[in-house]
């Protein structure tokens, strides 16, 4: 029975992918139809849904042709989440909807390109030093030339702008950094695994070759935190790095030591950087500052509670009270208009996405670079989702990062899609091929 299945395994999976994409498409159509009914005749806009359908259909067809053995869940999951995103953005900030749709088209093209052709994976593998230092250079450039597209004085300047387009170098750095770490750790893998096999080799684990990058990463994160006041990006970088080092070495010591470093940095940052002090204070007690610094978190909590079990329906709630609701706090809007059902659905789908991504890595354990790369890319998505979801729900202090695939933001969407594209490519690799 199993040999029969492996003769033509892609058939069922292509059908599964198509079914999921059709359901996702119906979901987007239903929601945007409701939105257009609410808007009435004259101000209707069907562009986002047409763009979504084009992206989903095109992506599916090219993946089917060029990469028949890919994971059938990853692409539909990503399209469902970004369809959700398009619907939310069209509802919250209609002026941005067409722009986001254009980014979606570009991102899907990038996903398909990095999945169906080996170029991106090869680039990440062969030019890691160049890419890594290029990424660092861009980040440094944003320290100096950074701007904030909203133009508010005092807002964090995380963007680099050119010809009316803006992007965040920190986003590009995510993927480049993971590739760099994956190949570095893959090279050190014999040392790591021998240290694991032989407990007597305690000392080799603390050699500068392994401790060096830890300190380097810690330094980069602190730099990001100090110069850019970008708490979210700093946390994502460090957590992903820590978990990746743990995945490569299998040593609990890594997590313990990293936890101590994080707590130390946290305590230090709390007493040194006003931005961190404020975030933590807001988290502990938002209600006494509800009209001031805690306005965003209080409004998003109110929005979540207004949603109830099934939500107000798209366009029928009032999530616009939440500041930057289309970007960082998008989850509050989802919870208000789709209720517990929609909110739980997003968490569940991100969870499945992370599980599938980790599965890609587990299948490829014989190839350290591929395994660590897919684990790292998955962790970026997972950690980022966890931080922003927890932040909006006041489980942890709020850090200003985007919810992958759902939030408004071109560079975030593009980079997330490229990461999934690479995951798709790795998911199609045969772990037993030589």
């Amino acid at each position, binding site marked *: *029975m*199993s040999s029969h*299945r492996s003769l033509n395994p892609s058939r069922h999976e292509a059908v*599964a992918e198509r*079914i*999921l994409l059709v*359901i*996702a498409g*119906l*979901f987007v159509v*239903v*929601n945007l*139809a*409701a939105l257009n*009914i*609410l808007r009435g005749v004259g101000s209707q806009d069907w562009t986002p849904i047409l763009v979504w359908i084009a992206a989903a259909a095109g992506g599916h067809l090219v993946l089917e042709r060029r990469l028949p053995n890919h994971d*059938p*869940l990853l692409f539909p*999951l990503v399209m*469902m989440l970004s369809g959700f995103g398009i619907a939310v953005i069209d509802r919250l900030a209609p002026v941005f909807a067409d722009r986001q749709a254009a980014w979606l088209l570009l991102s899907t093209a990038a996903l398909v390109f990095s999945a169906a052709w080996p170029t991106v994976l090869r680039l990440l593998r062969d030019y890691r030093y160049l890419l890594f230092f290029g990424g660092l250079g861009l980040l440094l450039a944003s320290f100096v030339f950074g701007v904030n597209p909203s133009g508010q004085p005092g807002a964090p300047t995380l963007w680099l702008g050119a010809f009316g387009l803006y992007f965040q170098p920190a986003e590009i750095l995510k993927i480049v950094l993971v590739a760099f770490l994956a190949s570095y750790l893959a090279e050190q893998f014999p040392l790591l*695994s*021998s240290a*694991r*096999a*032989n407990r007597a080799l305690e000392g080799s684990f603390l050699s500068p070759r392994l401790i060096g990058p830890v300190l380097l990463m810690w330094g980069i994160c602190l730099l990001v935190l100090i110069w850019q006041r970008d708490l979210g990006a700093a946390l994502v970088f460090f957590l992903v790095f820590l978990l990746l080092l743990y995945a490569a070495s299998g040593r609990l010591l890594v997590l313990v030591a990293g936890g101590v470093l994080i707590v130390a940095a946290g305590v230090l940052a709390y007493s040194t950087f006003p931005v961190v002090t404020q975030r933590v204070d807001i988290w502990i007690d938002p209600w006494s500052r509800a009209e001031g610094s805690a306005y965003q978190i209080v409004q998003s909590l109110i929005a979540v509670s207004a949603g109830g079990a*099934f*939500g107000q*329906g*798209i366009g*029928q709630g009032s999530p616009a009270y939440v500041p930057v609701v289309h970007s960082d706090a998008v989850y509050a809007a989802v919870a208000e208009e*789709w209720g517990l*059902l*929609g909110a739980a*659905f997003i968490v*569940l*789908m991100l969870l*499945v996405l992370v599980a599938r991504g980790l599965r890609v890595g587990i299948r490829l354990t*014989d190839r350290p670079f591929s395994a660590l790369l897919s684990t790292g890319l998955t962790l970026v998505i997972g950690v980022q989702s966890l931080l922003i979801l927890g932040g909006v729900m006041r489980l942890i202090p709020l850090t200003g990062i985007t919810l992958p695939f759902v939030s408004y933001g071109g560079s975030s969407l593009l980079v997330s899609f490229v990461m999934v594209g690479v995951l798709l490519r790795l998911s199609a690799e045969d772990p037993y091929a030589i």
Partner: protein
Amino acid sequence: MDAELILFGLRVASAVLIVVFACVIGWLLVRELRAAAAEHQVQRRSFGSLVVMFDVDSKMVPTGKRFPLLPTTSLGRSPTNTIPVDDNFASSVHATITRRSDQWWLEDRRSRNGTTLNGIPVEKPAIITHGDIIGIGKMRYMIELMEN
């Protein structure tokens, strides 16, 4: 009035679609798990296993730990082996067991301390059968073949 009804219908449809999407995902995951479990069963059933043995007063007693016997099984200290051997006398890739034309061959991979078959050092590839005991360092493994 009428628009309100349509809007309500669309809300219900949106909720139903969410649930359906999640259910299809769940169903696909379950199906895949079942297939993987079935494949695992087939693999285990068709060949056999290596039973880890324990030397008590020169009598071999199974420890209860066993590894599946694969068409190419490698034994050694490195954790990348199909059967990692936790013994200081084992080399990183110590020995391999391969299936060639319906027979199982044991081969020493030029290990530092050698491999034994029923107590005799293995110099060149040897055919092994049910009940044979492979020795690496202090570890002993008994071959248990399944007859089809």
